[in-house]
């Protein structure tokens, strides 16, 4: 929301110094160098990836490498699409991501609303227990979580190959609860008091007063939920073992052994497109969410 653009505040180097003749030249030299170097470092590999996947196996093994594919082969991409059944893999990943967003939005918003506004007895203890999970590294929990998912306590059901194995654990996200609760805390009580006097139920208050104001934070939570599912690797690899239920990252990894390099990289490019599009579209929300979420706590 306010993650940048305070051009007025003085920074390390004063504006007067930058405005002087030598300062200005130096500023532009540094700026242009940084732009060129960073573009090369961060876009360069992506360019290499997209064009490399267009080369023939022979051309990719050639030294020195060619900057442009001499004989572009879009076939590598269509091969990747068909051989790895990417349509199915992308659909699976998309399905898991959307489900994760819905579960997180409904259950985490309800919980954060209860903790922020309804405040039942022992609410703070529950919040504390939720936040304590932030201290446990993910790798430490992976084994007991896996054992739990293949044989749920009490009901003894296995969630292996079921989308719930991805959806439900994502709800246990203390960072979401923290973000949402803090946002709800900033909504003045007066606004809610009026609704309560009018006889609105808590659900109605949440739906027609809180949620409309909270759109920005709900957007941030949703974007992070989608990218987290899209980027995740080990958990979907463990709980979605069948070829039909795999996510795109796991599918590419599974096929990488017996598939030509260029085809694998072509598949990797296709798998990366959705997250890049999400990033380009929601850039502002992502950056503000990242900095406001992590800093001013």
């Amino acid at each position, binding site marked *: 929301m306010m993650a940048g653009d305070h051009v007025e505040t003085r920074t390390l180097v004063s504006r007067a110094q930058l405005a002087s003749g030598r300062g200005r030249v130096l500023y532009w030299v540094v700026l242009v160098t940084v732009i060129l170097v960073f573009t090369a470092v961060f876009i360069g590999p992506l360019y290499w990836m997209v064009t490399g996947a267009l080369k023939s196996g022979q051309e990719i093994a050639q030294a020195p490498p060619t900057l442009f594919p001499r004989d572009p082969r879009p076939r590598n991409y269509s091969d990747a699409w068909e051989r790895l059944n990417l349509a199915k893999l992308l659909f699976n990943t998309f399905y898991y991501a959307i489900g994760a967003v819905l579960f997180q939005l409904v259950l985490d918003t309800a919980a954060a609303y209860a903790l922020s506004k309804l405040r039942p007895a022992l609410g703070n203890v529950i919040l504390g227990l939720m936040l304590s999970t932030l201290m446990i590294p993910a790798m430490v929990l992976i084994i*007991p979580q896996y054992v739990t998912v293949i044989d749920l306590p009490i009901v003894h059901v296995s969630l292996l190959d079921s989308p719930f194995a991805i959806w439900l654990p994502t709800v246990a996200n203390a960072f979401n609860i923290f973000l949402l609760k803090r946002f709800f805390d900033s909504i003045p009580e007066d606004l809610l008091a009026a609704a309560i006097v009018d006889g609105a139920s808590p659900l109605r208050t949440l739906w027609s007063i809180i949620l409309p104001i909270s759109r920005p934070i709900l957007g941030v939570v949703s974007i992070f939920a989608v990218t987290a599912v899209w980027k995740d690797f080990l958990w979907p690899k463990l709980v979605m073992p069948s070829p039909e239920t795999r996510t795109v990252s796991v599918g590419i990894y599974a096929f990488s052994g017996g598939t030509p390099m260029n085809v694998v990289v072509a598949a990797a490019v296709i798998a990366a497109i959705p997250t890049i599009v999400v990033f380009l579209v929601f850039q502002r929300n992502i950056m503000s969410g990242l900095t406001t979420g992590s800093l001013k706590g």
Partner: protein
Amino acid sequence: MAIVTLPATENRPAGRGRSAVRRPYSVRRRRVRDNMTGYAFLSGAVLCFAVFAWYPMIRGVVMSFQRTRRGETRWVGWDNYERIVNDPGFWTAWKNTLYFSLLALVVGYAVPFVVAIVFNEFRHARGYLRALVYLPVMLPPASALFLFKYYAYDPSDAGLFNAVLKALHLPTSQWMQSTTMTMPAMVIASTWMNMGGAVLIYLAALQSIPGDLYEAAELDGAGILGRVRHVTIPQTRLILSLMAMLQVVATMQLFVEPLILANGAGTQDAALTVAYLIYQHGFFQNDLNGAAALGVIMLLVLGGFSAVYVRLFSTQDGRGR
């Protein structure tokens, strides 16, 4: 009864005060009903936390003292710990993991801070540069790592990195096939993939430094480096130290990089990490209990590190004031 419900009264939102005019017994009933509503809203998330976070936290410790074989579970004391510590890869894995964390700290920690300081001086192209460094963070790690594995770390001169090194007349490298370059290569890939988040967080921290502090330091005759040392670093110290801790905790869990770049343990176990050893025991050696024990060891090491770190940092901070 009254004592139990008292804390809830303090927590109650101001807008609900009107129930206080009613008769006491109905107040209590209403309070119970309000609590029930609250719990109903909490129930879904609490259930998910209970099943997928709180229960596994306990289960992990319990499992590490049990052994399940052919569907039969019995208590075995410290057997799992003994077995995992005596695994030939145990010490290698810890050594490699610590080495990676250290390298990642040297490269991956200083670089984003310097980058953020430089970016913060610019009056142009800020949005572009910020988007640029954050772009790899959005890539699925599997995608980015196949790029590194096949194109960048190709040990022949056809690889991207070797081609660049050759053009600069520098010695080329075998990358993932060389035991000495395995870890640095993983650090480069991991830093490229992850540094964007740190840069954005540092940028936000830099923007909250009051301009007069730089002004004052300049009047006192401090040059640019002097101002970085006496203004920028002290002012961002809290976030700097927090990020160092988070980074160590994150790098100690290194898993996807060795799995994809080094096909697991790498040449002569040069890429074997603790997280990979957990995976190997759990899913290849059919030893979920040993894997759980290693998880507990990892938790203790990271928890111990965090505790010592926070303590050191807070006492240092206390002396500074």
